[in-house]
């Protein structure tokens, strides 16, 4: 079985898991987004077909919620918190530093697909502001000059 086929089997499994649940479509998309890092056109079409909902409804949902990405993402997802506490404590400076370091803007992915840079409105670590989260790890009380060494930890 080639890779593409295998993926399709997996996708169907995910869809079937939530099929019986009322309103399960968002859960389906979440799991696919988690597993594959993004929602491909094929995946969205399959979800629409299997759940018997109009494709536009699936596409609407996929573009409405920020948790979903329609483009492949980098191996490491960097979320810069821009909640109020982080904002007050200079979170946007950390974002600018990351943008300069990585040569991409928020919402973009580096060419070699290593990092995706995003902003998030509060991850609830306000006491440690300014905070960023790389994959599962949160880093608090940041300063611009600490950014390069943190990036080195996630290669």
């Amino acid at each position: 079985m080639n890779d593409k086929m295998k993926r399709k089997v997996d996708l169907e499994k995910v869809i079937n898991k939530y099929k019986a649940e009322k309103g399960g479509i968002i859960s389906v998309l979440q799991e696919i987004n988690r597993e594959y890092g993004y929602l491909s056109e094929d995946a969205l079409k399959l979800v629409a077909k299997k759940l018997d909902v109009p494709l536009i409804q699936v596409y609407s949902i996929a573009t409405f919620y920020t948790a979903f990405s329609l483009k492949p993402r980098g191996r490491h997802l960097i979320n810069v918190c821009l909640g109020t506490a982080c904002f007050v404590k200079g979170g946007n400076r950390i974002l600018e530093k990351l943008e300069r370091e990585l040569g991409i803007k928020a919402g973009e992915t580096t060419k070699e697909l290593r990092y995706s840079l995003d902003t998030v409105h509060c991850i609830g670590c306000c006491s440690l502001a300014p905070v960023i989260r790389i994959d599962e790890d949160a880093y608090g009380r940041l300063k611009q000059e600490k950014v390069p060494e943190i990036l080195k930890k996630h290669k």
Partner: protein
Amino acid sequence: MKIKNLKDLEELKIKGLESLYPKRTKINVGLGTCGIATGARAVFDSIADEIEKQGIDALVGKTGCLGFCQREPLVDVWQPGKSRIIYCQMDPEKARDLVTGLAQGKTRKEWALCRMEEEEFIIENTKKKYSIKEKDGKDIPLYREIPFYRKQKKIALRNCGFMNPENIEEYIARGGYFSLARVLSRLKEEEVIEEIKNSGLRGRGGAGFPTGLKWKFCRDARGEPKYIICNADEGDPGAYMDRSILEGDPHSVLEGMVIGAYAIGSHEGYIYVRNEYPLAAQSVERAIRQAEEYGLLGENIFNSGFNFRIRISQGAGAFVCGEETALLASIEGKIGEPRPRPPFPAERGLWDKPTNINNVKTWANVPVIIARGADWYSKMGTAKSKGTMVFSLVGKINNTGLVEVPMGIKLREMIYDIGEGIPEGKKFKAVQTGGPSGGCIPSELADLEVDYEKLTQAGSMMGSGGMVVMDEDTCMVNVAKYFLNFTKDESCGKCTPCREGIKRMLEILDDISKGKAKETDLELLETLARVVKDASLCALGGTAPNPVLTTLRYFRNEYEAHIKDKKCPAHICPDLIHYSIDKEKCTGCGLCLKECPQTAISGEKKKPHSIDKSKCIKCGVCFEVCNFDAVEID
């Protein structure tokens, strides 16, 4: 096992107490999200490792967050018959030392935050006393003496940090599920609603609607089935107490929901958890499974014939889903677009059926009110705002963390007593409450007694309890711009005032911050703010102008300085400031030169440096790294 009666519950309580207070040393590590962010997992691992390596007779346990997030990682040491000591700002190295010391009977005072003299079991109205005579601990301040904790009264946060959230028996040991047992065996549905009504409890998530009344509306509404929802879409930036409760004490929310479900006549519930809180979602999921195993959720709860099940619905990143009708749309698998109210969810909610939605904190309060009674609860707080409120005290303040205090506390007490003032001796300028729906309250109103009414009168609101402190270095135009940027991103885009109006307000604010605005723009900004507030479909648009309106009301001179003098008094707005180096103070250490991304700084080693203004992008890194205060902003 399935719990069928009080006797079963009492038996589990004994087991839970043994787990909370074992006959040997127990070292608890706070493993909430903020603990983990400061390295608590590594601390936990090194403690476990050291205990094993040294073969010490001790346990290591996990707890939720004790609220003093500033001092994380927190480690709490229980030793039978000895002082209970909480250590702060631990790291793996210190943790190893601590374990070694404990084995030799030593206390590490220098790392201690406080000693617990007693622990309040709020549900039972009892106190567990600890030894405070022990000689090693006598210089360590008592829990009640710590400014951060002194004025606190923990009801919603009663268990956070004091128990293992993964252990249902520990929850039971602290009085958990006894209120539910009482409700199901002795109280009629109406009596429960009456009790909640009389307690004066109001919604802790936003506008503060009376909870008992909300329950009654849903109970009286026609239609089956009825749904119960816990709104855990804690979207206000700067507020994270719901996360802390779900992570540190998930059963308190479940118990509250079952009680509510019984009173309203519902058999199905949802907890709508924010996407950004993966740990909270896991914690609730685990708690639901446990409660089902013990017969506290599911079929025939407490052998009473009452059925109730709870499902988790996870958000996908949309602030607007905190709004009731958008939240319902999201659970139904649609985009989070609000619809006009009426009909209210109590009449037509989830899948058009009667639905009752309450916030995490509201649910967590319910078991305590049932246990201690409406009279006891309503004695706390102010005339119209009863009980306590959990605030997240963050921003430019010395002590940051979660604070639960009776309603009516003065802002001054929050900032100066609990928070111990502003760092670096700076001036307190304003406090922002209520998130993007709230406003900025200036230092002149420091004597304001915080409750629903007073905050609204001041132009702000309670919201979910975020309290972000701002000092003199905060530009209020920039703050207003920040919030409108937030609401612009988070607006669903359905109605004209919210989608178009906020965009236009932001354009004006942007012009102001760049020194490009005219004086008449302020008038236009005010008109827009007023009408967007009035004409929007839902509460997101209806409150989005508040940050602008309050900053205009209290800090108008700052707006005028940007417009007339082309100056940003707080030295924040990049287009209106310049960086330069004070030749007297500069030692020529070269640190700024090294960090400057634009090579805008030049100078020989050990000689004063200078900044080329044409190259400078005002990133501020030179200002941050300078150890001699030589970089100036004007």
